[in-house]
C-alpha cells in the first residue's frame, strides 16, 4: 500500500525536525532565536556516531549527544544572552563551526559500525490497526518519545511558572525584569534545554540515516525554523507541520512508485522539502515572532 509506505516513512523522517522544532520553540518562547540550530543538530548527530564508534551502543551515543547539547547550550547562551552578540550572524557562524568541527573530527574518530539505530519496537495491539498501526506504532523508541514530548513541551511552556516567566521574556523583557525576574537566567535555561532537544534531533537523524557523513543535516535544522513559524509556536501544531515536511521528504524515496514523479531526476526531487519550506514561510505570513525574539537584552540592573 503506497500511501501507508509514504506516510510511514514520512513519520520516521519527520522525527529529527520535530525534536529540533521543540528545541527551537523553547528558545524562541524565551526570546532567543537560534539560527545555529543546524549546527547543534549536526553536533548531536556526530556525538551519536562517536558513541556508536567508541562504545558500540546507540544509547551511549544518545548520552554523548545530550552532553554535547548541554555544551552547545552553554556556549550559545554565553554568546546570545550574556554577551548579546547578533543572533542571526552568530548562529550562522556556529553552523559553519559545527560543520568544520564535525567533519574534521569524523575523519579521525568515526568508524563505520553495524549498530547505528535504535531497535524497532511494535506496540502490541495498536500495531495491528490497519493504516494507523503501521504508520504510527511500528517505530523506534525515539519516535514514540518525540510524540510524547509534545504535551510535555506544551505543559512546560503553558502550565508551569517557568513557562510563564520565560514567555514574558519573549514578549516584554523589560516588564519581566520589573516584575523581579532574571531575564538572563530564564534565557540560559531555555537555550540549554533547547539545545539538548535539538541535539536529540541530531541523534534521531543519525539513527535514521545509518551513518554519519559530513554535513548530514542538509538543511533540516533550518526547515525546523520554518516549522516553528508555521505551527505558531504550538507544540501540537508542530507535530502536524513536521509531518508535512517528513512526507515531502519521503516522496523522493518512494518516487519510482508514484507514477510521473518516477521520471523526475533525483537531484530535482531533493528540492521538494526546501520548496515546501519556502511556500510554508510565505503562507505563514500572518504568523509573527514574539516581539523580543532575536533582540539581546541588557538588564538595567546589570548595565555597565
Amino acid at each position: 500500500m503506497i500511501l501507508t509506505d509514504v506516510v510511514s516513512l514520512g513519520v520516521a523522517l519527520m522525527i529529527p525536525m520535530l525534536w529540533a522544532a521543540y528545541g527551537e520553540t523553547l528558545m524562541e518562547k524565551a526570546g532567543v532565536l537560534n539560527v545555529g540550530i543546524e549546527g547543534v543538530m549536526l553536533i548531536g548527530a556526530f556525538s551519536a556516531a562517536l558513541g556508536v564508534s567508541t562504545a558500540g551502543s546507540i544509547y551511549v551515543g544518545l548520552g554523548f549527544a545530550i552532553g554535547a547539547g548541554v555544551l552547545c547550550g552553554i556556549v550559545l547562551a554565553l554568546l546570545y544572552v550574556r554577551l548579546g552578540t547578533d543572533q542571526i550572524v552568530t548562529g550562522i557562524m556556529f553552523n559553519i563551526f559545527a560543520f568544520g568541527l564535525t567533519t574534521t573530527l569524523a575523519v579521525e574518530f568515526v568508524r563505520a559500525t553495524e549498530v547505528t539505530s535504535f531497535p524497532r519496537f511494535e506496540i502490541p495491539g495498536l500495531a495491528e490497526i490497519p493504516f494507523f498501526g503501521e504508520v504510527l506504532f511500528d517505530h523506534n523508541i525515539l519516535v514514540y518519545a518525540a510524540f510524547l514530548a509534545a504535551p510535555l513541551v506544551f505543559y512546560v511552556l503553558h502550565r508551569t511558572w517557568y513557562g510563564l516567566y520565560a514567555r514574558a521574556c519573549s514578549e516584554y523583557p523589560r516588564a519581566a525584569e520589573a516584575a523581579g525576574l532574571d531575564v538572563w537566567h530564564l534565557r540560559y535555561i531555555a537555550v540549554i534545554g533547547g539545545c539538548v532537544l535539538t541535539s536529540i534531533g541530531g541523534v534521531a537523524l543519525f539513527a535514521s540515516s545509518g551513518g554519519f557523513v559530513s554535513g548530514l543535516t542538509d538543511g533540516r535544522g533550518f526547515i525546523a525554523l520554518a516549522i516553528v513559524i508555521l505551527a505558531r509556536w504550538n507544540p501540537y501544531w508542530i507535530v502536524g507541520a513536521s509531518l508535512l515536511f517528513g512526507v515531502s521528504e519521503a516522496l523522493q524515496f518512494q518516487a519510482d512508485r508514484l507514477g510521473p514523479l518516477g521520471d523526475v531526476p533525483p537531484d530535482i526531487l531533493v528540492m521538494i522539502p526546501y520548496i515546501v519550506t519556502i511556500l510554508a514561510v510565505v503562507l505563514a505570513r500572518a504568523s509573527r515572532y514574539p516581539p523580543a525574539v532575536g533582540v539581546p537584552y541588557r538588564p538595567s540592573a546589570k548595565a555597565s
Partner: protein
Amino acid sequence: MATRPEPAGVPGVPVDRSEVAARVRGWAPSLLRTLIALVATAAIFSALIAALGVNPADALTAFWEGAAGNTFNFGQTVMIASLLACTGLAAAIPFQARLWNVGGEGQLWFGAFAAVTLALILPDGMPGWLAITITVAGATLAGAFWGFIPGILKATVNANEVITCLMLVFIGIALGNYAISTLFPSESNQTESVPFDRLLPNIWTGTLVTAGALLALGAVLVALTLMSGTSLGFQIRAVGLNRNAARISGMRTGRVIVLAFAIGGAFGGLAGAIAVLGINGAVVAGFSANFGFLGIAVALVARLKPLWIIPSALLFAALRTGSSGLQAQTGISATVGEILVTVLVVLLLALGVIRLRYAEAAQ
C-alpha cells in the same frame, strides 16, 4: 564598554588636538580586543591541532606553505580571495540595509549553474570574448534573481529572509548537482569542461590566477561607487539605520529591500561565474568549501565596507588555502579552516570589535 566617538570634523576646519586624542583612545581598546581575539583563536586552534596529534609549530609551517609558501600557492589564495570578495559583497550590501542575506552560498551555486549552462550551450562559432561576456553577465543576472526571490518575498509578504535564503542555498546546490549528474555529465564528478576559449584568460604566468581576480576587483569598485556615490546606496544605508524613518521620509523601502537583495545576489552570481570560468572550468561536485557562508565572515570583518572587503577576503582565503596545505602535510581535514575562521569571527563579535549598527532596538 568604551564607545568610539564619532569622528568629528568639518572640511576645512582644523581638528582639535584633544579630539584626535579622543579618537586614539577610542581606537586603542578596539585594537587591543582584536589582538586578544587573534591570540585566543591561535591558542584554541593550537590546542585542537595538538589534540589531533600534530605539533602546532609544524602545523603553522604547513599553513604558511599552503597559503603563501610559493608563487603558485599564493596565486591560489588570490583566486579564493576573488570568490570570497564577491560573496563578501553579496552579504555586505544587504547587511547595510539590515537585511540578512545569508544565501550567498546559494547565489554562488546558482551563478555557477547558469555559467556552466551558458558556456556549454552558446553556439560553437561564437567568438570567445563574446561567449565569456554573455556567460559572466548571465551568471550575474542569475545570482541577482536568486537574491531577488527572498527580497520580493520579504518586501511583499514579510517572509523571513533568513529561512528563504537558506532554502535557496540547498535548492541551488541541488541544481548544481543536477547539472553534474544529468544535464552535462562527464566521466568524473563534475560537469563537462567548458571549452578553453571560453575560459577567463590567465593573467599571471606560473600561477593559476585568471582575469577572474580582476572581475572581483571590479566588483569591489562597483560596490564602492554604489554605496558611497549613488542615491540608491544612500537609501540602502538609510533603510538599514531606521526603516521607518526611511519610509516616512519618502523612500520606497520595499523597492530598496528588493534591490539590495538583488544586487547582493548579483555579486554572489558573479562569484559563481569566476568559479566556473576562472578556477575550475566546470561545476565540480562540492566545489564551494562554504565560500558563500564565509563571505558573511568576510563582510563582517570588513565592517561591511566595500574597500575593506579586499584585505578581509585575502585573510580568509589565506586561512582556507593554509588549511589545504595543512591537510596535504598532516592529513587533518581542511575543514579545520572553517573552525579557525568561525572561532575568530565569533570572538571578534563577542569582544565587540565587530558591531552591527542597530536602529532603536525593539525595547
